[in-house]
């Protein structure tokens, strides 16, 4: 590919990356890309160039001014979004530049416009897709700017600023310029390697600056900093009057990071959201929707809901994703929430104030948790839950909850008007049950055995629960849970409906559970004295809900989600607190290292680690890991050096005469070069030897002998004998000694 072809190709690619980023942000429709592509194709067609060059620059400026005024009018008079207007105008300018670019500065403006598209994209999205145009930009920008610099500098030098000012560079036919532009040598493999290394260096340096640059948000014009691509699969309503097929959505709702090494039973894969207690015949509602919500804490980084238990707490870090709700999800029953888990001990045991504060948590009358003040930007928290697991024997010995007086029983026994057959069914199901637990099991067994799970719900009529139980036994979890809860209430057992999530996909890259919209679930809670509200799930097991389920392209998807996680955690939500934490960690690490070195402790630690390793102890693993990592780095480094040495021959430099010369001659050249003697272009080896011999008379004879043998080997197809080889080796050795 010639210089000029590569120059155009890289320019066009950069333009498309800029505009493509706006498409990825879903601001421009991908069809719009046809316009710049068509302009590029036209530009490669010579007659188009002639037509375009005949268009007056004044006319172009006039049209541009009209477009600019239209954009201003659109913003001022019609109140359109400013960003949208800016995007439209920059896209217009970019297309115009493609068609009219002649001078070198036009190309620089093209790069600036492509960058401005990328900047506009940052205001439109924070999604992971931004990575794609960003990385492409980092690869292409060095190419474009390097070729631009070569071209511009060359034309400046060969044509002079005066000529460039008077004429458009594309029209100038200077022989030297044309020769370079059509050359294939300038843009060879070596430039490719150098530019690729440049891109890598650029990326590394960019990330370095990104992580080190102080984060200060002045917030004068924070428009666009709040992003919302939130789509909810979780609903704050449970309405049974709807019908039709429910589409499974794989959008990520939240990520749950369990404690390392902890294996979860299926009953731990529940994350409770909202509790419903009032059923009006078709829809579940909350009696104490707002009035009895109590704020637990506004100041601490750790929020406690119940007295601390010793052990048995399930610790989970939860990161909410695209959820448009203020509900705080947690495995029932959450006893504590911490924004910074590392502060739990210092807050609870030492009574210290936390170094940073999270948002306040409000607990409603049902024990459900909410962010006080709506959706929070702080969407990662750690929950500590105590999951009671009484045995059936224990539950059967419990007194009836209706008689315990611990709760407001009537609220949880509320029923709308049902027909007699419903009540008859409830009575018949619990007729033989001796305890509330048996009643729950009996009702659940009936519902699970008589009804089928489906996402394609038929129209159930005015009383959906009765229709579900007696006429059309098809429904999803809301029907199963509602029918069970209402049957239990009819049988005198206090029950309520819970909505949240159940199950998820295990991400092996990030070691977390991906909880998706399709994992939204509804189940029931039944009250048992001494234990409180216990969860029961009457929905039959189904491949579409709950548990860890295999999905198509699972590995790829999990990898993408892992990247997304890193993106949001380390890039999008990177804050000054993260910087402080990293800096603090680094400092403490350095201090401890220094202390270990001073005290000599590190030697003992290494020795101990080695001893343990010899003894086969697992405790030696860290030292072994360090050795392995260090060894690996050395090997990788060596490979890189070898590859770098090999690359030029394969990619750039053609094998020259010197590469075909015998090794001893090349070594000779290298050794004398170290002493400051370099063979001049056009100087024969014999002349070179005579020159050196004149300046190093003690070596003159040896060098002459070496050169004679070089001629013999190189052109006489001879081979060195033992004597000659020995003498040449001695000569080279003497030259080395002298040089050192």
């Amino acid at each position, binding site marked *: 590919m010639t210089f000029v072809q590569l120059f155009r190709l890289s320019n066009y690619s950069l333009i498309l990356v800029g505009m493509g980023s706006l498409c990825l942000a879903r601001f421009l429709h991908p069809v719009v890309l046809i316009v710049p592509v068509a302009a590029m194709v036209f530009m490669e067609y010579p007659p188009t160039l002639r037509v375009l060059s005949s268009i007056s620059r004044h006319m172009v400026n006039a049209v541009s001014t009209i477009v600019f005024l239209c954009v201003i009018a659109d913003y001022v008079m019609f109140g359109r979004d400013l960003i949208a207007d800016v995007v439209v105008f920059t896209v217009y300018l970019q297309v115009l530049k493609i068609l009219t670019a002649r001078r070198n500065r036009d190309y620089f403006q093209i790069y600036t416009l492509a960058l401005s598209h990328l900047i506009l994209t940052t205001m439109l999205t924070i999604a992971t897709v931004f990575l794609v145009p960003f990385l492409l930009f980092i690869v292409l920008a060095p190419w474009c700017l*390097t070729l631009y*610099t070569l071209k511009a500098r*060359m034309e400046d030098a060969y044509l002079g600023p005066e000529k460039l000012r008077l004429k458009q560079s594309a029209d100038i036919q200077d022989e030297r310029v044309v020769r370079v532009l059509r050359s294939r*040598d300038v843009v060879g493999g070596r430039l490719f390697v150098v530019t690729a290394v440049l891109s890598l260096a650029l990326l590394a340096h960019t990330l370095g*600056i990104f992580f080190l640059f102080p984060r200060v948000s002045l917030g004068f014009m924070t428009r666009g900093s709040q992003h919302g691509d939130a789509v909810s699969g979780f609903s704050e309503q449970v309405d049974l009057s709807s019908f039709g097929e429910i589409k499974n959505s794989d959008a990520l709702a939240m990520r749950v990071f369990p404690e390392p090494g902890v294996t979860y039973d299926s009953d731990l894969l529940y994350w409770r959201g909202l509790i419903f207690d009032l059923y009006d015949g078709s829809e579940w509602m909350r009696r104490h929707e707002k009035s009895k919500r109590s704020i637990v804490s506004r100041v601490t980084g750790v929020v406690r809901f119940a007295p601390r238990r010793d052990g048995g707490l399930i610790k989970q870090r939860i990161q909410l994703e695209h959820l448009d709700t203020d509900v705080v999800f947690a495995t029932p029953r959450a006893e504590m929430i911490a924004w910074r888990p590392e502060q739990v001990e210092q807050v609870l045991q030492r009574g210290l104030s936390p170094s940073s504060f999270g948002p306040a948590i409000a607990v409603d009358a049902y024990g459900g948790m909410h962010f006080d003040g709506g959706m929070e930007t702080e969407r990662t928290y750690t929950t500590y839950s105590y999951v009671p697991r009484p045995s059936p024997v224990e539950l059967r010995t419990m007194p009836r909850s209706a008689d315990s007086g611990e709760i407001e029983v009537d609220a949880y026994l509320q029923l709308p008007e049902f027909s007699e057959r419903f009540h008859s069914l409830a009575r018949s199901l619990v007729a033989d049950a001796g305890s509330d637990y048996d009643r729950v099991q009996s009702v659940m067994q009936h519902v699970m055995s008589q009804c089928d799970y489906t996402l394609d719900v038929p129209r159930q009529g005015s009383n959906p629960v009765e229709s579900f139980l007696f006429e059309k036994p098809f429904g999803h979890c809301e029907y199963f849970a509602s029918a069970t809860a209402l049957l239990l209430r009819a049988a005198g057992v206090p029950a309520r409906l819970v909505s949240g999530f159940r199950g998820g996909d295990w991400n092996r890259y990030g070691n977390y559970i991906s909880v998706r919209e399709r994992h939204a679930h509804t189940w029931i809670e039944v009250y048992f004295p001494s234990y409180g509200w216990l969860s029961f799930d009457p929905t039959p097991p189904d491949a579409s809900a709950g548990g860890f389920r295999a999905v198509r392209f699972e590995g790829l998807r999990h990898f993408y989600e892992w990247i997304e996680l890193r993106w949001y955690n380390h*890039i*999008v939500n990177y804050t000054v607190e993260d910087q402080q934490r990293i800096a603090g960690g680094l400092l403490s690490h350095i201090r401890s290292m220094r202390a270990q070195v001073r005290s000599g402790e590190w030697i003992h630690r290494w020795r101990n680690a080695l001893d343990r390793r010899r003894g086969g102890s697992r405790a030696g693993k860290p030292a072994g890991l360090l050795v392995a990592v260090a060894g690996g780095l050395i090997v990788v480094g060596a490979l890189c050096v070898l590859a770098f040495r090999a690359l030029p021959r394969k990619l750039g430099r053609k094998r020259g005469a010197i590469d075909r010369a015998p090794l001893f001659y090349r070594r000779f050249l290298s050794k004398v070069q170290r002493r400051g003697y370099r063979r001049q272009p056009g100087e024969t080896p014999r002349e070179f030897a005579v020159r050196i011999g004149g300046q190093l008379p003690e070596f003159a004879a040896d060098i002459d002998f070496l050169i004679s043998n070089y001629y013999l080997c190189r052109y006489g197809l001879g081979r060195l004998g033992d004597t000659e080889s020995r003498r040449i080796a001695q000569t080279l050795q003497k030259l080395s000694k002298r040089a050192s």
Partner: protein
Amino acid sequence: MRQPRAIEVSGRNIRSIRISRAGWVFILLTLGLGIGGLNSGNNLIYLLFGMLLSMLVINAILSRSSLAGLEFSFRLPQRLYAQTENRIHVEVHNRKKRLPSYALTLIPQKVGHASSSEGYFVVKVPPGGTAGFVHSVRFEHRGRVAVPGFMLSASYPFGLIEKFIPIHLDCERIVYPQLDESALEIGAAASRDGDFLSGHRGHGVNPYGVREYVYGDDMRRIHWPSVAKVGAWMIREFEREKTPRILFNLIVDPGPPAGTEALGKRERTVSALATMLVHSIRKNREVGLMINGSPVESSGSGYLDFYLTVLAVFDQEQPHAAPRSAGRLSRVEDAVIGLSELPRERVDASMYDRLVFADGAPA
């Protein structure tokens, strides 16, 4: 003649840095993004800000590495003449083992009265490779000059920051007087081409006489008209060739010329004399030089360079003598040619075979 030593440059030689126009635009963009990031707290803007800042830093580092490890060697012509395009061969050798150097610009420095072309651009010097170009420099005046060097600059890879390294040749040379072709014509007219005869028999080309043939003579030299006239074998004889000796006397006013007109006269006279000297020596004539009647002693085979050097600096470095009487000029020469910047009435024209005045007319 000693050539200037090769000059190796490194990053430490960088003397100045210039931010290009594109660089200023780039810096403004970077600052704008930085402020935008600080204001909005949008981390993606920080990311772009980091990218632009990195490009500036990498540009600064790589333009340094592009300049490092380069070696410049210069080959000057054997003689430098005033008012003439003197061609200097410049070679750039990249001593780096791995990295090529791209987009090098060499801008000739302006020193004294020297003027040269705009600049030279070297697209690429591969590692271990060499690139070269021919630089032409024009000196306005004769005399001792420092050969001007270059300002080497590179803005690779992004053209945002340009770094400069001055390359001083550290070489002083004598610029000889201009060789004036018109003066050569006048000089040729004055130098009596073909008038010098030795008067002795020999093997030249001019006929000497005719004599009787003797055994052993070359039969091809038989002069047939004389044979027919005399009736005996007659043979042609030729005159022996002679290397003519010409003495040039430069007649000038003592002290530096006053005013532009006087200066022009002086330069024309010196230029004409230099031209005739060169011409005569090329024609294998023995030449001698006198300035205002004082002989310029020369020795060895390089007396042309010696004479030209004397002519280049005779009125610049030490005061020269006043014109002496023409009677003291040597008469052993075949021709005595005077070149005078003085007016006709102040010169004794009888002492010269030819006399050339600054206005160009021979006496």
